[in-house]
C-alpha cells in the first residue's frame, strides 16, 4: 500500500506514494494546480475540469484530482493551452448561471471569483444564459441560491461522506442539472437534514450561505470540514 514512486511535476522530481492523486502530490509539494470541485477530505469527482494537466505520453489532458500517480509519471501543471482551457472553463461557469458578484454574500471570499481574478478573466466571451432560478429560503438557518451554484457537488459529498446524512444530490442532466435536497423537497422540509451546516461551509461560492449575512459578509470555514475527515483517519 505504501509503495513509493518518483514523479516529475513541472520538471522537479518528487517522491510520492502510489495511490495518491496528481493533485494531492502537487499540493503537498507546494505546486499550484487550480481546482474548484476538489476539497481535501472528500472523495474526488473531476467535475470542474480546472485541474486538467498535461501528462507526458498521454495525448489528452487529465484531471489531476482523479488521476493516480505512478512511477515515472511526468506532469506539466501549466502551459498556454492549459491556461486557455482553464479560462474557458471559468467563463463557461459564469455564463451558465447568474453570478452577480456585486450583490453576493460571498463576494471577496468566493473561490470562483478568486479563480477568475487569478486567471485574468476580465470578461466572458460566451453569451450569458440568464436562467430563471429559484432561491430556497425554507430552511430556518440556511439559504440555497441556485443562481450561484457551480454544481461542484462539494455539498453533496460533504453531507454524504462527512455528516452521513446524504440530504443533497444532483438531479437532471447537463445544463439543466440542479442541486436537490431529499428528492426535490424544499430544504426546510428535508427530514434527513441535521442542520449541521457543513454543506454551507464546503460551498465554494455564495450558493449556500447562512441567513442574516449581507453582501461580502459570508466567510466560510472550509478547513474545518477537511479537518474532521483527517482527524477521523486515525480512528
Amino acid at each position, binding site marked *: 500500500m505504501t509503495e513509493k514512486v518518483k514523479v516529475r511535476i513541472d520538471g522537479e522530481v518528487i517522491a510520492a506514494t502510489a495511490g495518491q492523486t496528481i493533485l494531492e502530490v502537487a499540493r503537498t509539494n507546494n505546486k499550484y494546480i487550480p481546482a474548484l470541485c476538489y476539497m481535501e477530505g472528500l472523495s474526488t469527482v473531476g467535475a470542474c475540469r480546472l485541474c486538467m494537466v498535461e501528462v507526458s505520453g498521454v495525448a489528452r489532458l487529465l484531471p489531476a484530482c482523479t488521476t493516480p500517480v505512478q512511477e515515472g509519471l511526468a506532469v506539466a501543471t501549466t502551459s498556454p493551452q492549459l491556461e486557455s482551457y482553464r479560462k474557458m472553463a471559468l467563463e463557461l461557469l459564469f455564463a451558465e448561471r447568474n453570478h*452577480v458578484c*456585486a450583490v453576493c454574500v460571498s463576494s471577496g471570499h468566493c473561490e470562483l*471569483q478568486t479563480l477568475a481574478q487569478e486567471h485574468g478573466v*476580465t470578461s466572458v*466571451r460566451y453569451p*450569458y444564459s440568464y436562467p430563471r432560478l429559484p432561491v430556497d429560503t425554507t430552511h430556518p438557518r440556511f439559504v440555497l441560491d441556485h443562481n450561484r451554484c457551480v454544481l461542484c457537488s462539494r455539498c453533496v459529498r460533504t453531507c454524504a461522506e462527512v455528516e452521513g446524512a446524504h440530504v443533497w444530490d444532483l438531479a437532471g442532466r447537463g445544463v439543466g442539472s440542479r442541486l436537490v435536497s431529499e428528492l426535490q423537497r424544499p430544504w426546510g422540509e428535508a427530514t434527513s437534514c441535521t442542520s449541521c451546516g457543513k454543506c454551507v461551509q464546503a460551498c465554494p461560492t455564495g450558493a449556500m450561505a447562512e441567513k442574516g449575512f449581507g453582501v461580502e459578509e459570508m466567510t466560510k470555514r472550509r478547513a474545518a470540514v477537511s479537518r474532521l475527515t483527517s482527524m477521523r483517519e486515525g480512528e
Partner: protein
Amino acid sequence: MDKARIGTCWLDGCAGCHMSLLDTDEGIIAVLRKADIVFGPLVDAQEWPEGVDVAIVEGAVSSQDDLKLALTLRSRSRIVVALGDCAVTGNVPSMRNGIPRRELLERIYVEGATVCPGVPTDGVPALLKQAEPLHSAIKVDVHVPGCPPKANAILMVLGDLLEGREPDLGSKLRFG
C-alpha cells in the same frame, strides 16, 4: 502634441463607476494634462463627438437609447473601455433578464404603484429584451470590471491607454 480626447457615458448603471472616476481626486489632473474630457455627464455636450480617442462606458446595454449611444460612440471612438461590472458582465441590470419585459414593468409600475399606476411610455426609451454586457452590442477593447472599479485601477488604465500601452489590470482585477 495635440491632447487626446476622452468621452465618458453611462448606460444602464448607477453612476457608481463615474463616482469612482471622481474618486481619482488629484490623480485626474495628470490625466487632464494629456487629454481633454469632451463628453460625459459633467460636460455640456449634447451629442457624442467625432474623433474620440478613449470612450469610457459605464452600465449595461438595456434600452433602445443605450444601444443607439453604444453604436454611435463605437463608430466615433478609437478605443472603447467597458468600465465596471454592468458594462462588463451585465451585473445587477441583467438580473431582470429571466423575467419577460411586460411582466416586469407591470409588476413595478402597476401592481407596485400606489399612485398613477401604468407603464410609462412617454419620454422613456423602450427596454430591450435583455440587459446585456457592452461587448454583446459593440466591440470592446478594454474590460475593467469592479463594482465599482477602484479609482487607482481607472487611473492605471487611463495612464496606460494615453501612453499607448495595452492595460494589464493584474492584481487590480476584481469583480464585485
